[in-house]
């Protein structure tokens, strides 16, 4: 067992750890294994030799640190934006906490909820609390580094502007914020595991991750349109009593007391909360949660009693559609099979759902947002329809997911199965994808269009469907896989292709927009062109789907 450099930091805390009644050596062993595995996580297959991949990984880890520091620099204007220190500090801590909590949930959940090390440590003379503490320190160290990279630029700026004391205080508050987010997440997980099993918890995490992606992206669009920056900088900011319940304001309070001096009593209360809550939470965690954490964690592998899935209306509908669209039985089998995988695998859902939400959400937001000053009106507002020509652009990056699966190793079954034509298989999978993800989107759009302009909405929907068929056909043309669900997901894989697809889709959608805006001037013409575009779409689809015998 080699000594690890980063574990030297643990030494000064030996007394504290032993004071908590935990064996220092045991915690050291847990951390040794975790950090050693982290260092090696890159090369799975290679033995011994340092691969290029490994070097690349090191480089990318380094560049990630640079990105965080860059984000940190971007936060500086917020600190200097307003007159009120408390307001700008609160905005700042809100962003930081949001960032911390979300990265805690999306990046470190798997590390926090890893049960593999239970077999390693708990079958040997290692106490549960030592394993829990090791788990905590391991994650905390990553979160702390991340937070310091984010806040160091701000600490420097605050330090220069308001004195070293202020900088040091911000530093301290940053540490408290990272304690707060790690402990809070762990406590919430334990609470969830108390009531639900591990599968449910994983579902919660997936839902949260999708919501997070959607919030970030939509927020980026909405917030600048809603906040009037000039109003923010000039207006007098008054602290209200209910602000006490907003955690980010706690962490902003101490600094505003130091700089503004003579602040209100409420702010003092917040400052006390900001300092005591993380410490109390930590105490609570060590005393009550940590000893029980491992016990709860063993529930992760319990999936509960699988209830016999009854064939609901939706499944019967899917079956009927599958029979309708497939030409052979093999194809039908793959339609149903791919639907199961595409809608059940967590990783896949994580990549699909944001795109689906954007495909419907963005057109609505743009459509509604651009009604400057007027009261928001949806019914009869046919300009909103125009925005839906951007929908396919959000859908183009989804089809490629039929290549990937979490259990990609299972793909050997395609090779041993006696298919005469592999194209049947891929065709079925593509159809399954369309039924599972594309069809629901256009169903929603259809209902919305009907709401907007009555029966004529269906003519507009026809145009949309035609466009979607054309773009999806192009999408299929560019698909390069022989077997579905046979590769491990690799984000680097598709970069170039996605750009080409994006440009192509934008041009074609642009033509449709121009067509609707300038060419179509009567409803009979609208119906005619809608019919025509569906025909073109259908021909392209036929050609593309035939080409899938790669």
């Amino acid at each position, binding site marked *: 067992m080699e000594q690890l450099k980063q574990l030297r930091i643990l030494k000064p805390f030996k007394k504290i750890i032993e004071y908590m009644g935990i064996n220092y050596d045991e915690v050291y062993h847990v951390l040794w294994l975790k950090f050693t*595995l982290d260092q090696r996580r890159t090369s799975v297959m290679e033995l011994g030799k340092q691969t290029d991949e490994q070097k690349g990984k090191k480089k990318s880890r380094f560049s990630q640190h640079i990105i965080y520091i860059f984000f940190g620099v971007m936060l500086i204007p917020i600190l200097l934006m307003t007159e009120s220190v408390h307001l700008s500090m609160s905005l700042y801590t809100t962003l930081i906490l949001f960032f911390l909590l979300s990265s805690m949930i999306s990046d470190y959940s798997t590390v926090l909820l890893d049960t593999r090390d239970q077999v390693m440590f708990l079958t*040997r003379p290692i*106490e549960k609390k030592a394993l829990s503490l090791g788990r905590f320190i391991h994650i905390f160290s990553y979160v702390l580094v991340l937070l310091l990279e984010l806040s160091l630029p701000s600490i420097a700026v605050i330090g220069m502007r308001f004195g070293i004391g202020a900088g040091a205080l911000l530093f301290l508050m940053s540490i408290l914020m990272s304690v707060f987010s790690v402990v809070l997440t762990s406590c919430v997980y334990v609470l969830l595991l108390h009531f639900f099993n591990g599968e449910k918890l994983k579902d919660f995490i997936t839902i949260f991750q999708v919501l997070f992606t959607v919030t970030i992206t939509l927020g980026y669009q909405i917030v600048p349109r809603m906040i009037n920056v000039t109003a923010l900088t000039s207006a007098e900011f008054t602290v209200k009593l209910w602000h006490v319940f907003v955690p980010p304001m706690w962490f902003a309070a101490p600094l505003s007391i130091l700089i503004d001096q003579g602040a209100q009593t409420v702010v003092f209360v917040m400052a006390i909360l900001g300092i005591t809550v993380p410490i109390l939470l930590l105490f609570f965690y060590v005393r009550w949660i940590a000893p029980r954490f491992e016990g709860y964690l063993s529930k992760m592998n319990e999936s509960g009693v699988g209830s016999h899935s009854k064939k609901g209306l939706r499944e019967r509908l899917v079956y009927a559609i599958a029979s309708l669209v497939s030409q052979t039985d093999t194809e039908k089998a793959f339609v149903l099979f791919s639907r199961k995988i595409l809608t059940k695998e967590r990783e896949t859902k994580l990549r699909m759902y944001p795109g689906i939400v954007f495909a419907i959400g963005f057109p609505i937001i743009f459509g509604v947002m651009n009604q400057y000053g007027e009261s928001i009106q949806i019914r009869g507002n046919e300009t909103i329809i125009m925005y839906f020509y951007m929908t396919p652009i959000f859908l183009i990056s989804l089809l490629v997911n039929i290549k990937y699966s979490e259990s990609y190793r299972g793909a050997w079954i395609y090779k041993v199965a006696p298919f005469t034509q592999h194209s049947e298989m891929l065709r079925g999978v593509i159809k399954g994808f369309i039924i599972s993800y594309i069809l629901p989107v256009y169903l929603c759009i259809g209902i919305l269009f009907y709401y907007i302009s009555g029966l004529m909405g269906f003519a507009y929907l026809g145009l949309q469907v035609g466009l979607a068929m054309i773009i999806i056909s192009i999408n299929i043309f560019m698909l390069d896989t022989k077997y579905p669900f046979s590769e491990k997901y690799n984000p680097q894989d598709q970069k170039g292709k996605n750009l080409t697809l994006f440009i192509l889709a934008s041009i074609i959608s642009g033509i449709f927009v121009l067509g609707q805006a300038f060419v179509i001037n009567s409803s009979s013409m609208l119906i005619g062109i809608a019919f025509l575009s569906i025909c073109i779409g259908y021909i392209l689809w036929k050609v593309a789907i035939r080409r899938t015998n790669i």
Partner: protein
Amino acid sequence: MSLIEIKGLRKSFGTKDVLKGIDLSIGKGEVIGYIGPNGAGKSTTVKIMLGLIEAFEGEVYLFGENIRKTDASYKRRIGYVPEAGEIYDTLTGYEYLSFIGELYALNKDVVEERIMRLMQLFSLEDVVHSRISSYSKGMRQKILIIASIIHNPDILFLDEPIAGLDANSVMVFKELLHQLAQRGKTVFYSSHMMDVVEKISDRIVLIDQGVIAADGAFETLSATSHYASLEELFNKVTGTDNHELIATAIIETITEESSGKSSGEELWNS
């Protein structure tokens, strides 16, 4: 004095009862063949004894101590080969084993000496410093076996320990268990390979649907009811003595063209 004492052990996952009252007393130097159908609760029992599962009813004593009340130090005298064989394969064989040695707080020099000798005896001397990810299934299994005995434990919990081992290694391993038992070590061996279990164990504990269905030396168990092999006994007790009928029904099922109900289908449903 019994090393393992289990009283009224019950465990349920959700609404499913896995263990419905297990009573067991195991002494020094016994080799227990712990057998039962899939999902009978074998692994659950072992996991409870190792402290991996905390929530259970009943009492479990190891080395005379109630495991609910004692700290983890009793595990110093236990060795374990897990069933799923999870192993941190980015470590080398040597690193993995020396880390295990640290966990048992063994002297560094002693551990190093033992690793080198054991890896040689298990014919792993060529891969001592290679990553476990490059090992074959049998080699990984050998690492797990070494990890379970390196601290000279008094009780060994083995869950399908010879899966993937070649015939020579299996022979060495069987002999190893035999000699360990002679030196007073207790072995708790769970497996589905009936012929191996029959040969190595001097006491069979058969668990079925969460209760102990048979307990005793194979000779005594078979003497009363004239079973030629443990396999036969197992099938009789767990209620699958109609294996011939089932096999015929399986063949009928795959050869029949029509989807009419065959005798096999009725058999499965009964």
